[in-house]
């Protein structure tokens, strides 16, 4: 008898619990799942994607950049800058700021804040995330912007920015969040990293920080003092930290979470059948590749000598490996339509630059075998693994642990290469260790992804001089590509620019410094109650102030 009463009581209790949560979630809020805790809300150090998303809504920019699908380019709209005027040869810009924009502590945002922001971002002592991005400004040798030459402040809301005359200036040179001078000024510059403003920022954006509960939520609420405020705006945005991926899926289905990015293709298929959810994706911003070390890493790091790698130094071998890999199978079976084959580091979202005539390397194991034979690799002892002299074609393919897509690709690739007589051992490394190996050129082969920066940047990733760029992981050596990259740095007419871009794609595809695998979408799933949501190459979580319920 007693047990029955206990049981009944607990049943009532549980029912009560499940009722309670219903009524509290009716107000205008949206819950966005993020997988890891943001480290800081300070735009200076917002290195991670989540920090980027949150600080974008806390801090205003000079210009509001929007993506134009048709031209595959960006367009600028007023934000802090009410209007602006380029001079005739576009080496300087005159900016008129809004007079009604305020910091969350009540101070007005002025031209001095703008100047100060560029000062902080370019200061090597601060090590901001934008450091090194001010090459088009008048700057000192250590990278710091030369404030006197660059800025002419006419009054608090009117300033002129001058650029280096010979450079190609783009709108992205102004795309930095503006930070409050009167707050940062009080801090010692090398103490900004650990100061309190990382957690309780003085902000200006359409949203402001309401609460930050460690490892649980970051809650933003609409900022009524911002000129972007609109009464229909969603009043609270909750960034909920859910570290376990499968819980995100469960919570999306249950309505505990309204939006999440980085959904796996297999889940996308199944989520899209849910009547409350809508699945879209950001295309063409990230591609995955198999990196072949083109140069002998050991000789390079010891003596700075550039010697072709024993396996992958030969262009024919790289082409053969690309022929041997069944990229289409990976795209079809894992990405399930949320991706496309990749033939060069420029995707089709760049409507003008993209070379659609590029064929790429279609799966063809026979051709791979022929090419390998031409390069001198044969299986004399018939043990299933090719050899050249006494060297067996056997290497380790490294992948970062905890990434299912790369895991999948690696398994397929291993099997594919085995069929042409190349022995592959897959080794998973923790991401930090993998990056260490790649940067110091200790690894032979690896699978990683590149995120395509806006604006396009080829030199950082593919230029031959390895002392100038650390990011040419494969050690790609090509005179032709170098020539094109240097040419592209000059001021060019549009036609010439596009021709060069196409030429670059043909060159890199022919030489296959890496095997370009596929573009994979960033799949976003959101509850259909969110309206007016823009999802384009800029990212899935942007312009939240335009969302409606």
């Amino acid at each position, binding site marked *: 008898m007693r047990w029955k009463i206990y049981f009944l009581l607990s049943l009532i209790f549980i029912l009560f619990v499940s009722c309670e949560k219903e009524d509290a979630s009716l107000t205008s809020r949206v819950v966005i799942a993020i997988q890891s805790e943001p480290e800081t809300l300070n735009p200076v150090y917002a290195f991670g994607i989540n920090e980027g998303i949150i600080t974008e809504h806390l801090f205003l920019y000079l210009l509001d950049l929007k993506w134009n699908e048709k031209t595959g380019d960006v367009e600028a709209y007023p934000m802090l800058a009410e209007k602006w005027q380029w001079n005739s040869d576009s080496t300087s810009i005159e900016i008129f700021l809004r007079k009604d924009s305020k910091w969350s502590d009540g101070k007005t945002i002025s031209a001095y804040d703008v100047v100060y922001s560029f000062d902080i971002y370019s200061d090597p002592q601060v*090590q901001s995330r934008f450091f090194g991005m001010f090459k088009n400004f008048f700057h000192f040798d250590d990278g710091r912007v030369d404030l006197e030459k660059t800025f002419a402040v006419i009054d608090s809301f009117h300033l002129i920015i001058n650029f280096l005359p010979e450079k190609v200036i783009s709108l992205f040179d102004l795309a930095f969040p503006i930070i409050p001078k009167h707050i940062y000024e009080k801090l010692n510059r090398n103490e900004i990293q650990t100061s309190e403003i990382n957690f309780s920022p003085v902000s200006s954006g359409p949203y402001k920080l309401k609460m930050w509960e*460690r490892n649980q939520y970051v809650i933003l609420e609409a900022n009524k003092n911002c000129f972007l405020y609109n009464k229909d705006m969603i009043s609270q945005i909750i960034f909920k930290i859910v570290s376990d991926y499968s819980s995100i899926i469960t919570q999306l289905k249950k309505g505990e979470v309204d939006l999440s990015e980085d959904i796996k293709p297999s889940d996308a298929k199944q989520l899209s059948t849910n009547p409350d959810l809508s699945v879209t994706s950001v295309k063409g911003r990230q591609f995955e590749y198999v990196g072949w070390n083109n140069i002998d890493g050991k000789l390079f790091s010891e003596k700075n000598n550039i010697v072709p790698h024993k396996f992958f130094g030969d262009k024919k071998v790289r082409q053969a490996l690309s022929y041997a890999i069944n990229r289409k199978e990976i795209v079809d079976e894992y990405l399930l339509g949320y991706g496309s084959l990749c033939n060069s580091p420029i995707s089709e979202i760049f409507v003008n630059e993209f070379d659609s005539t590029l064929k790429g390397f279609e799966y063809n194991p026979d051709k791979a075998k022929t090419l390998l034979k031409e390069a001198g690799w044969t299986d004399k002892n018939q043990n299933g693994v090719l050899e050249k002299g006494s060297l067996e074609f056997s290497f380790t393919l490294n992948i970062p642990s905890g990434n299912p897509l790369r895991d999948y690709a690696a398994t397929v690739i291993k099997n594919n290469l085995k069929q042409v007589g190349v022995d592959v051992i897959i080794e998973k490394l923790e991401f930090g260790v993998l990056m260490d190996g790649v940067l110091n050129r200790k690894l032979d082969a690896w699978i990683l992804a590149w995120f395509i920066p806006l604006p396009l940047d080829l030199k950082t990733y593919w230029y031959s001089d390895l002392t100038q760029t650390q990011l040419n992981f494969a050690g790609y050596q090509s005179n032709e590509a170098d020539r094109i990259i240097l040419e592209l740095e000059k001021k060019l007419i549009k036609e010439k620019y596009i021709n060069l871009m196409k030429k670059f794609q043909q060159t890199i595809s022919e030489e296959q410094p890496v095997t370009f695998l596929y573009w994979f979408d960033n799949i976003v799933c959101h509850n259909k109650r969110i309206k007016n949501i823009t999802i384009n190459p800029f990212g899935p979580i942007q312009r939240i102030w335009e969302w409606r319920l």
Partner: protein
Amino acid sequence: MEIINSMMNKKLKLILKRLLSSILILFLVITMVFILVRISPGDPAQKYISPKLSPELAQQVRNSFNLDEPITVQYINFLKNIASGDFGISYEYRMPVIKVVLEFLPVTLLLAFLSIMLQIILGYYSAILAIKRKNNFTDRILRKSSIVLYVTPGFVLGVILIYIFSVQLDLLPSGSFKSYFFDELSLFGKLIDIFSHLLLPVLTLSLPGAALFFNYFRDGIEEVLQKDFVLYLKASGVSEKIIFRKHVLPNSLKPVLSIAGIELGFLLSGTLVAEVIFSLPGMGRLMVTSILSRDFPLVIACAFVTAVFIIFSNFIFDLIKVKVDKRIWKEILS
């Protein structure tokens, strides 16, 4: 009087001795962890270095992490800092690691205490039930299912519980510690909110442990019940309840308490699997994420706190054991 005094002195000495050896162990733990993290490959500064930095500037940033000094110098500095209570600043959270640990500790403490209580209570009552109906159907079911529960890995159990209660029945939330609208709830609502969030993780943590306690209680009580003195007491007309409370239970508690000490220690050190499955912000997850992100000061602090808890909980349960049975003073304090 003097005899009591000398006994007290002896006890005090023994306790002091144990305290000293605990401190030594703590010292060894942090030394071991320090050496491990410092000789490991991978570079914690990597993610703070923009790929666009020139190699010299990248080196400058690296230097700011003080990772380039010889390991002995680092170790001495580190010990100096620890001695003054300064565990350093977390790379990841950009604040003192002590502060970070304090934010994560309450969840683990709550989970651990709830779970150990539930384990003991469940284990005890089911054991009593089994003994009352010895060799009958209930007993056999309890015994069999306790073994199955005991061997079932926590992650399997957790996934199953989520699948049943959260996905299929939609009764309880599948993760997190509290709802985002927590602050707007009434006091009662707050309690319910936390309860509903913690029910599944606590069950996941407790069921295998409860099965263990069930076995220990059952075996222990039964062994004592078969002893001659119980028969003698029964024969001399002492009521069964009193025999049970005053004689059987205390005598059968010793193994249970040792197990409880170990169990609590492990629970306090972070209820890792449950925290991962139910995305709770506890010590276990903090430790694993800090290891994965190579947040070395935080790793060391977590190891330290964990070791303190394990030593402490063993000590507490040893004291309880003494309370129950005074004869074992020497045995445990040596």
